[in-house]
């Protein structure tokens, strides 16, 4: 199978993720969009590693996973905290720096 197809898939996934982040209001869905973008990036890394026969791309993919996991922890915690104070998970409701 032509590895270029994986790159195209990665691009499609990234676009879907980016669009999700930009158009959806629910913080959880936005978060999912971010995850999708991260994983699209991972897919691209892995594909390029395969294409070039170089493992460093795969190593970076691992780093991305670690960072994504940590980010999910912090991000979900923030979302829960905001939900507790505002009774809403909509990102548009959080347009003020003060509470």
């Amino acid at each position, binding site marked *: 199978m032509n590895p270029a197809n994986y790159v195209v898939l990665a691009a499609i996934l990234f676009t879907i993720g*980016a669009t999700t*982040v*930009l158009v959806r209001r629910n913080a959880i869905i*936005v978060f999912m969009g971010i995850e999708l973008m991260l994983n699209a990036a991972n897919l691209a890394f892995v594909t390029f590693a395969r294409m070039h026969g170089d493992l460093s791309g795969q190593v970076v993919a691992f780093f991305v996973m670690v960072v994504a996991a940590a980010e999910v922890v912090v991000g979900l915690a923030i979302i829960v905290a905001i939900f507790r104070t505002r009774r809403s998970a909509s*990102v*548009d409701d959080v*347009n003020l720096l003060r509470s």
Partner: protein
Amino acid sequence: MITTATHAASAPVTAAWLLVALPLLSAAVLLLAGRRAERWGHWLGVAASAGAFVVGAVLWFALLGRDAEDRVLVASYGSWIPAGDFSVDLGMRVDPLAMTFVLLVTFVGTLIHVYSVAYMAHDAHRRRFFAYLNLFVAAMLLLVLADSYVLLFVGWEGVGLASYLLIGFWDHERPNAVAAKKAFVVNRIGDIGMIVAVMAMVAVFGTTDIGAVSEGAAQAGEGWLTLIGLALLLAACGKSAQFPLQSWLGDAMAGPTPVSALIHAATMVTAGVYLVVRSGAIYDGAPTAQLVVAVVGAITLLFGAIVGCAKDDIKKVLAASTMSQIGYMMLAAGLGPIGYAFAIFHLLTHGFFKAGLFLGAGSVMHGMSDQVDMRRFGALARSMRITWITMALGWLAIIGVPPFSGFWSKDRIVESAYALEGTWEPWVFGTVALVGVGITAFYMSRLFFMTFHGTRRWDDGSGIAPGVEPVTGAVQHPHESPRLMTWPMIALAVGSAVLGGLLAIGGAFTTWLEPVTGHVEHHEPVLPVVAIMVTTFVLILVGAFLAWRQYAAAPVAAIAPRGSVLTRAARRDLYQDTVSEAVVMRPGQYLTRSLVYGDRTVLDGGVTGLGRAVAGAGELARKVQTGFVRSYALTMALGVVVLAAVVLAVRI
């Protein structure tokens, strides 16, 4: 003009500083002591003035004991303003001219102080009044004794301040405060001339010392001398109420009558004449400026005389008359060296008879519950004998009836005007002076007859005076003033009667002034002297007769009739205030208003506009910061796309 060499002063003359110090100290004590001085303060004021007179008399005798050419003395009291190459010394110039003024100021001043003790007896602020009077005497003496124009300027401003304080002495009434302010502002205009003159002197002569300036004037260029002369004339016009700065003097009558007598008749207003005579060397080198002095004097002479004919307020008539008489002095001073001595001579005799007339007017007001409208007087001669007689002497002196004082001085001015060199000058100035004599005789006789003769136009309690329309107003009980007031009047009346004649014997006064004014050979007038004298006398008789016919023989309306165009104009001081308002005040107001508008719109507008622009830009920038996470995300995404595009574009 010959400049007599100056001599350093010795023993008694070095005490000249006492002349200024005594009244100044007294003024300080009176102002600082507060209510404690209430009981004896006025006598301290009298004593200070009298003390200054005694010192003046001692100095006078010291001068008389010297030869004529040694009579210009300078008492030096050290350096005052040492500023590198330029320095001003503190010194007093004791010479015949200064001594004439010192004796006039202190003698008439002391009499008026005594008069004021009684006149102001019922005033709650009599102590303050005497403090200001003393301040005035000190400043005036400093003015005439100063040996440099800078020190003279200090005295000049000092008398201006005292004048302001005393015109507005009853400043709880608005018109008085306004009159004081008017006098102050008009005098400031004149002071600009003084400042310009002093600066020009520093530029040309490098000194302001009166002696050095007089000596240097002979070598200086005529252009500079003309500038200095005209600037000094402006200063003199302000202080002496000469055309075109004459408007304040009439309003200055708002002050207490002794103030009008001392400051606005006898002494301060003549300071301008003093200045011109003192600066004679400058005018000798600047014929144009000298001619302007004479023209100003001639205009003011007629101006004051015309205004004096129409006023009904007794003090305002005297004010107009003062203006006119100072016009005579200015005219004389503008005639050059032949006129200087006569200007000062007239100034001296005028100081006596005009102060006497003012004190007489004050005495009439005192007896008539402060009424000043002459149409409410009439037939007062019987009620106030002494006032009547003293004022009669003053009246005869001012209109120039021989042998009273005014005759000796005024007649000489008319003669000198006719003796001027030139084609048209003697005829114009001589005739103006001659016509002025006739008008003076008319308006002063009008004042005298309206006040003391004719029909009674006040209610004496018996009802209405016969032959006059109903008289309104309070019942009057005219009475003679107390002795403290009549004695100074008598003293001044004696001076008005005999002083001129005494000083004219053998040209004594002219000779006495020669060390300052220089010796001048007398020119022959264009008309024979006898013809001038006869014409003058006839004009006096005609003027007095017309006044008698209109105001003593015929009944006088208690309410002023409408009068002719000229009368109405003269009543309003020939529209001087209207003209000043139109020419100076309104444009000034427009100028300030347009400046304020320009300041608000252009300058303030620029600054606030910049601030607004920054705020507006901030407002625009704020719109971008919505707080919506998704719009930030979009911005980031777009940024990344742009970055990627740029990177790609550059690589390809």
